[in-house]
Every structure is written in structure tokens, then in C-alpha cells.
């Protein structure tokens, strides 16, 4: 629930220069830069407020405004169970650092520095986050062109016998050289402390993608560790500033490619709230069901690869057996297996096909026995326990400090689940439980995820029951002016054709405003902070990725353990690089 009147009064009393805006069920505070730390400390530490969980930090660029950059902070209070957004103008292009309040701000501030060039006073190691050291530009600034600045002469692109048909330029945007990479590596470690520096990645079988880990080893014990991200950085935030809201949907698929539908739903919900579109009942239930199917799918992939990392090769193929069934169901409904782009603003792309419900019913009936099979092999297995119990213990305080979300937070006993706290779609109408861990080690995270799959099955069952009664309902609210008509409608009515044309060319003219809305992804909270200037495209789209923040704690808690534990910890945190890098 949002802040009460008394609390707001208390705030304005204490901070007279505070500007307050209430929009889309969310409080936006604007405060002067010199009062920022005081204000945030007040919010964090005052009883009855206790906004102690760090959710997100980003910047927005307003080139014509003076000062140019605006810092945006999102905080969550476990007591009030809601979020607030605090904004402040970065005078002299610099902001005070928050790492003394929240350790989780470290990477977020580095990212803001990397992308906007905003300086953070007092940051311990303000280096690039995704780009390499020595890169000259700040890509998310509005004056940086989307396609980059072609300035490096790379004639090798043209030295071929048959010249490609399109226009090939010998100039390319800047590419990192070996020296750049070495400089990047050096910037992460202050100096060599122990015996050898072991590199993992960028391409390594244990990292599940292109992350680059640096370990400073003493024997097999890790003395120091850092992570270099950015090998999969595609600049989705930059690209989406030039796309209509519907065109961004496929990009959200490609963030967390393992749980594409959940990302879709989180994004579409944010946009719908911004545009004030209400999807029909049936679409909501389909979304809920698909989300949970995708969640099981994603957890199965996690279980398989996690077990594979620990040497249990067979579980991997067992989980893929079930995953394949879900993939087939998704393919049957959405038409595409992996990056399905199934969601549309105002509904879903297709109605449920004939026979989808019986297939899902069968899967739901069949799956618990398979889940038991995995648990039989792993849960009580002594080797499994020996590898997992006590590895990477994360306590409640760290969850708030680093803004950990998803199964990682819940395994540490923090009941943070967006589905429960801020239900979108039909999550307020279904009945399910949130499994919580007690210790917060790898084993707890394993147990929590296993239980989550069981809860997902329960949710799917309820969705099927409901969907059986909604058979002939609409699946997309095409009478809303912001919603694209279906293909069928454009064929039979000229109005729909014109609307389709308008929406596709000019985009959904969203009202001016901003919104932060998140969804519960299998990997944590996936939040979208959208600033709209009344155009057909977002002025700024910030993606708060769960995996990015969850990964941040890895270097902290791996120190003093061996590299064999690093595999376990990484597997149990379960980052997907597509989402960390975006």
C-alpha cells in the first residue's frame, strides 16, 4: 500500500523542498542534490518508513535542461510493502554515491557512469561497467547516435572478392583492442595479491554465457574476485528509445531468453499501465498460465545446468525431457519455441488453440512424478548436500543491501515476491504459497526453486479451470485505441486497417508520465522504468534486471572459498547474461 497522508506530511515537514507526485500508484519524490543522502538515510532508517531495500538506480538524460542528468532511485520497504521513486538533478554532472547506504548501488552507479558519464563522488572504484576502459563515449546520452560513430578504419571488412550487395563502409564503430581489454582487466584488480589469476571466460563452460570472471587464487582458494560484464551488451535500452512500444516486445524476449514470456509480460504490464489499457479477463489468465509454464521451464533449465556443473550429467537430460514438453506447449500456443513474443499490448497474440488445454492438463498431471524423480536423485544425496550445504550463505541484511530478488532473496527468508506484493494479471485471484528458506545457502536456493515449480503447477491448474469457463471470450482488447487490431480485423474493416497503420507508423502515443512496474521473473525482479514524453516511443526505458543485481553479490561471498564452490554459487544464483548485460 502506498504511503499514508500522515507520513507524507511528516516528510514535507522534514524536507520542505521536497516535490511530491503521485502517479500510477507510485510516489515520485524530487529532492535537491545536497539533501539526497539525508533524505535517503531518513527513508531507510526511520521506523514506519524503512525503505531499506535497494531496488534500482539509474539516470535520465535531458540535454536541454540544466543540469542535464537526473538520477532516479527506486527503493522498497518491507514494512509498507511498496516502492518509492526518488529523483534528483545531478548538478555539475555528478551525484553523491550511495555505497555507504547500500552496497548494491556499486554496480548500478558504475553502469550510470558508463552509460551517461555521471560522476559519483566517493565511489570506491568508478570504472566502466559494460564498455571497456578507454572507450570515449557515453552511449545512453541523447546526443550519441543509435548506430554508433563509425570512426575506426577497418578495411578488412571490404577486402573480399565478391563485395556484398549492401553498402559496406570501411569505417566501423570503435572496437576494443587487446590493450583495451588488458587495461579493463587491470582496472578491476588493484594489484596482484595471491599466486595466480585464473580467468573464467568470456567463454567458459561454467559461466552459462559470456561472463568474464577474474579469480585471484591462492592454491584453490579465491582471495579476490571480480566480474567483467558487457560481452553480450546490445544496448537494448538505447535501441528502445527509437522504437514504438510494440516493437520493443521482441527485445524483451532476448534479454532473459530462457524465460521470454515472463519478460514479455512484465514489459507489457508496465506499458499497459502507462497507456491505461485494460486487457480482457481471458488474456490475463492466459498470461498467468504461460508465465508459470515458462517459470517451470526456466527452473528446469536451471536444475539441469546446475546439476551438470556439479557433475550429475544425467539430470540434465532428464530435465530437458520435461522442458521439451513445455517447449512444445509454448510452441503450440505461441507459434515460436524460445523467443515467442507472444504478448501484445492489451492482450495476447493468439487465442488458445484447440487442444491446448488438454495437453497442459496432461502435463500438469504428469509433472509432479517427474519432479519427485529429480528430488529422489538429488535432495537427499549425500554428495549433493556436501557440495551445497553451507556454500554461499546470504543473510537477510545482504538481501536488502544488494537488492537481491527472486529465489535468492526468498531462500534467505525474505518474502519478496512481486506476484504476491504487487499482483498483476490474475495473480491476485490464484492461490499459491511462497516457499522460504531459512539458512540462505545454495541448498536452500535449490529447495526453494524445487518448491516453486510445485507451486507453479498449482497455479496452472487454477488457470486451466478458469480458462475452461472463458472459452469464447476476447483475448485482446482491440476496441481500445492503443491496441493493435488483429490480422483478421484489418482484413475486414477499413477502420481497423487505418488504426493498424497509425499505430505501426506513429506508435502508441502514450500520455506524458513515468512509471516503474516490475514482474516476478524466474531470476528475480524484472522492472521497467519508462519515461514518456507523449511520443510514440519511450523517452527513456530503464530495465531493472534481477540477474544483474543478484550477480553483484557473487564476488563478495566467494572470497575465501574454492573455485569448486564458485561453480556451485554461480549455479545457484543462476544469472542469465542476456539479462545482466541487456
Amino acid at each position: 500500500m502506498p504511503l499514508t497522508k500522515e507520513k507524507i506530511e511528516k516528510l514535507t515537514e522534514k524536507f520542505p523542498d521536497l516535490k511530491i507526485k503521485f502517479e500510477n500508484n507510485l510516489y515520485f519524490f524530487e529532492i535537491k542534490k545536497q539533501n539526497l543522502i539525508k533524505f535517503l538515510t531518513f527513508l531507510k532508517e526511520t521506523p514506519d518508513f524503512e525503505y531499506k531495500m535497494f531496488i534500482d538506480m539509474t539516470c535520465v538524460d535531458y540535454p536541454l535542461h540544466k543540469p542535464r542528468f537526473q538520477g532516479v532511485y527506486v527503493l522498497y520497504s518491507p514494512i509498507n510493502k511498496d516502492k518509492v521513486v526518488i529523483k534528483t538533478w545531478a548538478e555539475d554532472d555528478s551525484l553523491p554515491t550511495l555505497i555507504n547506504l547500500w552496497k548494491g548501488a556499486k554496480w548500478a552507479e558504475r553502469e550510470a557512469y558508463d552509460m551517461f558519464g555521471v560522476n559519483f563522488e566517493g565511489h570506491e572504484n568508478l570504472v566502466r561497467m559494460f564498455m571497456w576502459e578507454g572507450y570515449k563515449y557515453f552511449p545512453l546520452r541523447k546526443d550519441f547516435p543509435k548506430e554508433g560513430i563509425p570512426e575506426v578504419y577497418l578495411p578488412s571488412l571490404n577486402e573480399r572478392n565478391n563485395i556484398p550487395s549492401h553498402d559496406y563502409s570501411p569505417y566501423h564503430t570503435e572496437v576494443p583492442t587487446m590493450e583495451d581489454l588488458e587495461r579493463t582487466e587491470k582496472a578491476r584488480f588493484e594489484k596482484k595479491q595471491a599466486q595466480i589469476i585464473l580467468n573464467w571466460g568470456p567463454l567458459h563452460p561454467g559461466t552459462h554465457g559470456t561472463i568474464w570472471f577474474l579469480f585471484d587464487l591462492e592454491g584453490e582458494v579465491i582471495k579476490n574476485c571480480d566480474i567483467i560484464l558487457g560481452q553480450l551488451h546490445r544496448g537494448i535500452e538505447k535501441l528502445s528509445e527509437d522504437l514504438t512500444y510494440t516493437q520493443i516486445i521482441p527485445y524483451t524476449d532476448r534479454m532473459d531468453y530462457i524465460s521470454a514470456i515472463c519478460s514479455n509480460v512484465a514489459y507489457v504490464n508496465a506499458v499497459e499501465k502507462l497507456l491505461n489499457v485494460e486487457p480482457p479477463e481471458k488474456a490475463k489468465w492466459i498470461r498467468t498460465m504461460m508465465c508459470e509454464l515458462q517459470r517451470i521451464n526456466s527452473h528446469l533449465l536451471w536444475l539441469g545446468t546446475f546439476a551438470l556443473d556439479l557433475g550429475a550429467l544425467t539430470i540434465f537430460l532428464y530435465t530437458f525431457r520435461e522442458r521439451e514438453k513445455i517447449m512444445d506447449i509454448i510452441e503450440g500456443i505461441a507459434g515460436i519455441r524460445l523467443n515467442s513474443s507472444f504478448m501484445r499490448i492489451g492482450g495476447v497474440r493468439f487465442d488458445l488453440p484447440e487442444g491446448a488445454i488438454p495437453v497442459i492438463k496432461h502435463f500438469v498431471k504428469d509433472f509432479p512424478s517427474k519432479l519427485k524423480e529429480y528430488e529422489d536423485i538429488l535432495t537427499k544425496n549425500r554428495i549433493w548436500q556436501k557440495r551445497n550445504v553451507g556454500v554461499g550463505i546470504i543473510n537477510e541484511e545482504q538481501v536488502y543491501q544488494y537488492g537481491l530478488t527472486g529465489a535468492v532473496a526468498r531462500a534467505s527468508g525474505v518474502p519478496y515476491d512481486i506476484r504476491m506484493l504487487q499482483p498483476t494479471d490474475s495473480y491476485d485471484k490464484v492461490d499459491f504459497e511462497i516457499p522460504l528458506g531459512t539458512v540462505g545457502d545454495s541448498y536452500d536456493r535449490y529447495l526453494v526453486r524445487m518448491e516453486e515449480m510445485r507451486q507453479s503447477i498449482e497455479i496452472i491448474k487454477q488457470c486451466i479451470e478458469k480458462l475452461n469457463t472463458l472459452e469464447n471470450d476476447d483475448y485482446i482488447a482491440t476496441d481500445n485505441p492503443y491496441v493493435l487490431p488483429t490480422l483478421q480485423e484489418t482484413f475486414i474493416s477499413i477502420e481497423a486497417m487505418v488504426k493498424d497503420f497509425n499505430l505501426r507508423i506513429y506508435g502508441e502515443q502514450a500520455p506524458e508520465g513515468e512509471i516503474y512496474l516490475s514482474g516476478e521473473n524466474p531470476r528475480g525482479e524484472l522492472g521497467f522504468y519508462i519515461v514518456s514524453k507523449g511520443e510514440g516511443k519511450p523517452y527513456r526505458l530503464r530495465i531493472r534486471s534481477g540477474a544483474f543485481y543478484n550477480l553483484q553479490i557473487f564476488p563478495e561471498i566467494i572470497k575465501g572459498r574454492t573455485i569448486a564452490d564458485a561453480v556451485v554459487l554461480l549455479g545457484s544464483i543462476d544469472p542469465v547474461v542476456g539479462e545482466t548485460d541487456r
Partner: protein
Amino acid sequence: MEILGTVLGITIKSVIFIVGMFLLAAYLTLVERKFAGHVQQRPGPLHVGFHGLLQPIADALKVLTKEDIVPQSVDRVLFYLASLLAFVPAIMILAVIPFGEPIEIFGFKINPYITDLNVGLILALAFGSISIYGVIFAGWASNSKYPMIGGLRKAAVLIGYEVALGFALVGPIMLAGTFSLREIVEAQEGFFGAFIWYQPIAFIVFLFAILAETGRTPFDVQEAEAELVSGYNTEYSGMKFGLFPLAEWYIATFVLSAIAVILFFGGWNGPHIFGALSPYIWFLLKLGIVFMSLLWIHWTLPRYRVDQITEIAWKVMLPLTFVNIFITAIIIMIKG
């Protein structure tokens, strides 16, 4: 003339054994792949030949014709030596392993073993220990970080389990009163004569030791692919790479399984229901069961961490073998 005949006989037998072992090892890969396939609910190799029967030959051709890349910074002598050192000792253990009772063909009495030494078991252990050098050299000579960590891990594991293995064998030796493998088999008469009934602890330790020595799953830390890419053989390619898994996973596993059968399951003893060949058939059957159960363990369990493995070796396995020796000695003294 006598000596020439013996030399000629042993040479011919050695060649037959080595070539046979090569072919067998190739087909053991097929066994493993089929077995793993069915454990994982997939068919395994299926398309080369009938149900993949020609797959090992295709694999061998592939691995032999691959480009053999030797990185510039390696220590060449040790780098080449390592793959041989891993391979040769494993196959040399074969010299002392008897596969059955002597048979007569065309009036010649042919022993199905190369030599029957009175220190056969010790020789087998010694050869097994040499193969550590292959791994350590490979790790060191590669001049790279993953192989070095892998090699050191393997060395730590092997040293721990060599000791436990040696002491585990003392029990059966005390019961049989000999080091000769043939005589150990002869000491186990009948179904209840097999030493597994008298030496269960030794057998368990031996089983663990086989898994650790051959780098199979609960103990495969040296090539934990999630951490070390491929462990000590990361820098190898072509047949030089092929020799490592061939030696470790197939020949060493096979040979150690054979020793397990000889020591604990009464070797080729068994009812004469298959006619003249029945000792061989019994031996291969038992060997197959032991080999398959090792595969079964490999394809089911996750792996330990390296410190946990050495902890088990020194804190659990070694004391267990001492207890076993102690109990065996007391029983022998009481029985006379």
C-alpha cells in the same frame, strides 16, 4: 630352443593382448556410450553400422586424422611423454592378469596370461602408481592454468587413494597367502569361497579407489568441466588427447575391474555350464558386471569437491582398511 620358444610365445601373447586391449578399449567406449544413452533415456550411437556398432572405428579414424596442435609454450618432451606415460602403465598391468585356466589347443598348453609372477599384485600396483606421472606431467608441461590445477588435483586424489588401495588389498592377500593373482583365484573355491563375503570392507574401499584412480564421477575433479574446462588435458588435441580418456576411462577401469573380480569374486570360478569355455565366460560376465556398475555410478552421481575427496581418502578409507586388516588378522589367528 626352450628359451626361444618361451620368448616367442610371450611375444606373440603380448602382441595379441595389446592389440586385443586396443580393440576392446575402442568397443568399451561404445559400451559406455550406449549405457550412458540408455541411462539418460536416449538411444546413444545409432547410425554408424547396426546400432552404432562401427562407431568406435569412426571415432578412432576421426581422432587419428585430427590436426595435432602443440601449443608453442609447452615443454615438448614432457608434453609428448605425458600421454604415453598415462597410457603405457595402464596397459602393462595386463601382463600379470590371468583371464582363466590354461587350455590345450592342438596339443599346446596355452596359459591365458602373459606371466604368472609371485608378486603379480604388487607389480600391478606399481604400474598403477606410475600412471600418476602422466597426469602430473600433462598438467605441468601444458604451461597453462587449467591443466596445472587439474593435474595437481588429480595428483592429490591419486596419492590418497593409492595408499588406501594398497592397504585394501592386504586383506585378500592375507586370506589367500600369496601375491600371485592366479593362486588368489584358486584360493576362492565355490560360491561362498569368494572373498567378497569375508572382505566386504576391503571391497568397498577398492571400489572407491577404482573410481578415484580412473577419474569417474564422484571423483572426477581433475577434469571438472564446469571449473577447469577439461582439466589436465585441456591443451591436448588429436590422438594425444584421445590416449588420456582411453587409458583412464577404459583400459584402467577395465584392468582394475579385472583385479576386483580376481580378488573378490573368485575370478573365473563358476559352475561348468558353458562347456570348455565356461571359465572365460564366467570371468567376462563378472568383469562386465563390475565395469557396468562403475559406469552406473559415473552416470548417476554428482561430484565431490577435491578437499572432500582427499578427506574421505585419509580420514575414512585408510582407517577402514586398517580395521579390516586387524579383523582379518584376528580371524586368521583364531582359525589357525
